């Protein structure tokens, strides 16, 4: 099946995400200075660089172990809340996919859904809390809808990216109810959430590398 995703494609996704995070690092940090502790870009860039280095050193030959390796690296190198949160996302995706050489688009969507559930179990965020959830959840809904409408993975991920971007933009007027931003109360209104911004880059990277 031409739409099946190889292990190499997952590796390319991780590398593409790292690239986007490095490019947007200052922007992410700037967003996080407005409503956080000003380290989201720095932390995630450090974590993703470490994840890529780990894959460069030894890239597992199947998707599950690859994503698990990325998750464990992030847990130990990011430092802030994105460590446990992105770490859990990748760990859940990894354990869902398992030790297989290729995955179908449906399996990819199922893995993403498991990843989101892991993020929710870890961070306990809900819709409109002004977090990464507000971009990731709409993206996965769009991915699943597109696949069940018969679209190929590439087109489905393009739709997912558009939904992530819309979800990210929708965080601007939200009042933060989670994380450091929640300490700011009303002052968090009018600022784009850094977590929603970075997770949109994750979906964008997926559209580039997995589709």
């Amino acid at each position, binding site marked *: 099946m031409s739409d099946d995703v190889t292990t190499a494609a997952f590796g390319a996704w991780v590398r593409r995400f790292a690239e986007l995070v490095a490019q947007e690092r200052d922007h992410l940090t700037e967003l996080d200075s407005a409503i956080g502790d000003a380290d989201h870009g720095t932390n995630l860039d450090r974590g993703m660089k470490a994840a890529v280095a780990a894959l460069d050193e030894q890239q597992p030959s199947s998707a599950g172990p690859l994503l698990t390796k990325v998750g464990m690296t992030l*847990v130990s190198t990011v430092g802030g*809340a994105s*460590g*446990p949160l992105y770490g859990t996302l990748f760990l859940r995706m990894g354990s869902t996919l398992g030790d297989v050489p290729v995955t179908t688009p449906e399996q990819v969507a199922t893995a993403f859904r498991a990843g989101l559930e892991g993020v929710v179990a870890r*961070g306990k965020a809900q819709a409109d809390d002004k977090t990464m959830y507000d971009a990731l959840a709409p993206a996965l809904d769009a991915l699943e809808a597109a696949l069940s409408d018969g679209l190929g993975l590439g087109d489905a991920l393009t739709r997912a990216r558009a939904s992530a971007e819309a979800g990210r933009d929708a965080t601007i007027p939200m009042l933060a109810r989670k994380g450091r931003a929640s300490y700011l109360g009303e002052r968090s209104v009018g600022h784009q959430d850094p977590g929603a911004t970075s997770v949109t880059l994750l979906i964008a990277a997926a559209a580039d590398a997995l589709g």
Partner: protein
Amino acid sequence: MTSGPGVGIVVVSHSRALARAALALASEMLHGRRVRIEIAAGLDETTFGTDAVQVKHAIEKVDGPDGVVVLMDLGSAVLSAELALDLLEDPAIRERVILSSAPIVEGLVVAAVAASGGASRSEVATEARNALLGKAAHLSVPDQDAAEVASTPVGDEVVGVFAVANRHGLHARPAARLVGEVSGLDAAVTLTNLTTGTGPVPAASLSRVATLGAQEGHRVEVRASGPQAQEAVEHVLALAARSFDETTETPVLPELAPTAGPVAASPGIAIGPVRRLDVAPV
């Protein structure tokens, strides 16, 4: 790898320096008693952050049959600790870990004292959770919702009274010394500040003893029941006579005359079994 008895404690903080300093403060309260405490803090010596894998290793290091209490500072420290529980390979360890909502500095002090006295992990966690009571009591009205002392005297009660000789009163260090003295004894011991009327509080709970507000010169009643009630009161009075081993202070003997026989410790009539308590020769 599991160690011996006693509750282990893990401190999870964004800052390694902060965790080490909190540990140093708490260690002052232990007076040589050993407690297994590990820190999982910072990504390195200077970089702020937490790492769930570090937390997992720390839990495994201090784990024992009595389990572990984990203290965390804020935000991602909690997420990392929760993730650490998921990463533990042995489900038996996970079952005996408690994540405490206590503040890290005050919580570690009372948790370490409780653990050093042989408290169970749920007792250690309760102590840690109540760690702010002393400060709250000092600053305002004592916490009305604080747990009632459930004490029904078992057998005869033994009562003694001491005057606080320490210049700064019964503050954290002498209080910890007192708590250490009575924990491990087979007796239910309470303290009442006769001067202010505060109490009774259980003498085995550092967080509750901290609410007595016992200043220099205040008279404190120690009341004990149980098989080692006698020893408990004798130990406390002897300790009070030594200003709770606060070495910077000159010990002041309480007013009991060593050879004059029983002396009324308070005006009025006392009814009950009489125990004669002599000041132990120094």
